[in-house]
């Protein structure tokens, strides 16, 4: 056993996970189970199913740093859809997941922008009406999913400011999101709306102030105290 020349077979040692969540570990085993994509009529099963969906959805969004969902267009993509088994969550069921499941899980889902989208650019949804499939055009809805709470984002920005010694400095929102300085933070590449809300929270607590309003949100700058 203690022969130093003997190389251990690769299988004997489990390979450490390279990331916190790898692409494959995002998907629970349920993801390949066809009924997972139909909300169950049995209420206790359904409650459990909703919590499974909430976990899947938040894990997926966090992993891919996705903040916004367009419903129904995003329903044809993972995680709402699994092309391998030709199943996807229907519009009504997806809404239930978003507005009941996530709420139950303590995740805020916020409808944003009464975006005026022409009917043509909305999604087409298949609906079962009296046993026959009917296609129906639905107005696109956009939601922000707060897979991290507003206070958590605010705390993260503040911690970063303190750690980088930027207290008292003026930082452009653009730099926070796209700049090299904040490259390794969780808010790098984040949604401007979400960041803006986090900063408003900090402003309310007197931790920062928007000093320059640019032409767009991204061009504003914030001074941290």
């Amino acid at each position: 056993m203690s022969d130093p020349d003997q190389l251990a077979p690769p299988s004997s040692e489990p390979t450490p996970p390279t990331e916190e969540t790898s692409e494959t570990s995002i998907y629970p085993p349920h993801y390949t189970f066809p009924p997972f994509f139909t909300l169950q009529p049995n209420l206790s099963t359904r409650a459990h199913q909703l919590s499974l969906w909430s976990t899947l959805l938040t894990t997926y969004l966090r992993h891919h740093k996705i903040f916004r969902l367009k419903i129904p267009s995003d329903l044809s993509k993972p995680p709402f859809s699994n092309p391998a088994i030709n199943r996807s969550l229907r519009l009504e069921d997806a809404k239930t997941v978003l507005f009941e499941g996530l709420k139950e899980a303590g995740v805020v889902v916020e409808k944003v922008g009464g975006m005026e989208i022409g009917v043509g650019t909305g999604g087409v949804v298949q609906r079962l009406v009296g046993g026959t499939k009917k296609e129906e055009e639905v107005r696109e809805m956009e939601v922000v999913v707060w897979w991290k709470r507003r206070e958590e984002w605010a705390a993260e920005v503040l911690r970063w400011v303190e750690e980088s010694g930027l207290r008292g400095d003026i930082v452009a929102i653009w730099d926070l999101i796209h700049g090299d300085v904040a490259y390794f933070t969780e808010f790098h590449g984040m949604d401007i709306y979400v960041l803006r809300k986090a900063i408003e929270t900090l402003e309310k607590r007197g931790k920062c102030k928007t000093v320059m309003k640019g032409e767009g949100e991204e061009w504003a700058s914030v001074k941290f105290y």
Partner: protein
Amino acid sequence: MRRSVGLSSLTRNAQTTTSYQTHGSNIRSTHISSLTTQFEVFRASISAFAQSHAKEIRDSPEFRNEFARMCSMIGVDPLASTRDVGANGVLGEGMEQFYWELAVRVVEVCRKFREENGGVMEVSEVREVIEKRQQKVDGSLVGGGGISDEDIIRAVETLSPLGSDFAILSIGKKKYIRSVPKELNQDQSVVLECAQVLGYVTMSMLRDNLDWDEARCGNVLQDMMSDALFWVDDQAEEREFWIPKFGA
């Protein structure tokens, strides 16, 4: 035996019968006592065997299984407690420990998935979940040889003296652990057996294969769905009733 005539033969016959009986019972009792001795010897040696092969029994599922089978064939309960064999069961303390630990994990797994499967879970699925968790967390339960389905079943059986709700159901070719106080009726068992083939059933599959009328099919399926034994998929041609199986 010579048949004698006359009245005296009656008493003689009676005497002969009694003496035969005594003789017979003598033989029987010697026989029994020698069997008892043999059995004691056998039990002692099986116990010694268990002690000296403790490691193999612990580490190899096949070995463990064969051994347990041998025990049950001669009527020794490998896990029998302990009252009559001194401190340990035949398999020794380590073995009892093994099955108790395993039983605890079985209970954990069944509880965890109860919401998903209505408290009926295939034995092999329970085993897969336990094995997967072991790989993920630490080393193993006992030894490194893995667990067999028979181990799981035996572990569940160790729970029965506690008056537990856990029981083994044999349906079709598969074995399930039932962790809720609920019996499957005849129709439900038949439907579950049908569903084993593809993982799901539909109304028309039942109608065509079992020759049941629509109402009977509908009732069974509805009941089983209400008991969370089935999940429905409404995105197929016809509503499919799936056995929830996604533990591992």
